């Protein structure tokens, strides 16, 4: 319990800054959350499963896109846990496995960090190839070449604003495509 309070105190301020548009805080929050998610999913579906990392990525994307469902007057860890548990149940249901995901305290998600990225089956990478060229190259510039969105925009001769819009739309599309193809 004490440990969870400590986690809450560490992550909630990051979430607050992330909600104000602070991208460094956002990066740090998602990084930390990713390590916890990896541990949680591995404990639930087996650490050898190639699906763990896909599930981590899918959940991080959901956390990112569903941030507006977070109520700033409430604690952060139960919110993150509810999203993670939803993604896990959704994942198991799709694969027609018997669904037994106990409803636990949010501490279940934040029990242990796991920094070791495991092999990914790569749902996202495959879907990325179906994006229109302009959007895909923008994503690859940011992802592979480590450019900022502004730099990538300049390189492709589009405005920073429209590059941001393009990136956001692509992420939303990826999130929906994940849902639909798994339907």
């Amino acid at each position: 319990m004490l440990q969870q309070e400590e986690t809450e105190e560490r992550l909630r301020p990051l979430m607050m800054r992330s909600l104000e548009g602070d991208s460094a805080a956002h990066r740090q929050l998602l990084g930390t959350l990713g390590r916890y998610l990896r541990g949680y999913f591995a404990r639930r579906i087996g650490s050898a499963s190639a699906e763990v990392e896909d599930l981590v990525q899918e959940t991080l994307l959901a956390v990112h896109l569903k941030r507006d469902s977070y109520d700033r007057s409430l604690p952060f860890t139960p919110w993150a846990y509810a999203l993670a548990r939803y993604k896990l149940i959704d994942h198991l249901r799709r694969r027609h496995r018997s669904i037994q995901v106990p409803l636990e305290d949010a501490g279940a998600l934040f029990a242990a960090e796991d920094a070791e990225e495991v092999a990914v089956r790569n749902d996202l990478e495959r879907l990325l190839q179906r994006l229109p060229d302009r959007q895909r190259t923008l994503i690859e510039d940011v992802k592979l070449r480590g450019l900022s969105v502004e730099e990538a925009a300049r390189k492709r001769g589009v405005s920073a604003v429209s590059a941001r819009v393009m990136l956001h739309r692509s992420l939303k599309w990826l999130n929906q495509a994940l849902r639909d193809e798994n339907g």
Partner: protein
Amino acid sequence: MRTADLIELLAGDARAIRRGVVTRKLLTALIAGGLVTFAIVALWLRCQPLLAAAQQPWFWMKAGYTGLLTLAGAISVRRLSIPGARLRAAPLAAALIILAMLALGAGQILATAPQARLALWLGQTWKICSPLILLLALPIYACLIAALRALAPTRLTLTGAAAGFAAGALAATLYGLHCPEQAAAFAATWYTLGIAAATALGAVTGRRLLRW
């Protein structure tokens, strides 16, 4: 794609998030759906003479009943739209309001002469009341579902049921603009049944419709 790369992408898409998005989206959906249902009531069913009706206690008894249920339903839907939030007292409040209304209706039946009870209970329109409320709930339910899909409900059956309940209660409130029935026993039965049907519809369809 490595997870670290994905996080870079997401950090590149960081931007300020407005406060109160959940409440605003749900309220917009209730208003939009409510306007459609109101138009159906006003143009198709026709309102009863409202100036005269508004002088009568029974008009406000019905409006108060379904209005309070709408409020309890809307609060429940909002709580269910926030992952990890507790549902708290709203469903309990709705149950208590319904029980109070059933008690009021039962009391009215008991206070009526036995040979007049059936007429009081069934009124003139008992056959169409519940089905019309279910029908009128559909536009509101559709708007709520559209709003909820953009949010992040994690308990889909329950959220669908709450959305159906809120839609049914608001539809019943608007139906009260048309419906000239005056008995508490009537509203306690046929209004409540219409709202229950909308709730059941939400519970059955929500699971499928609300996935994100």
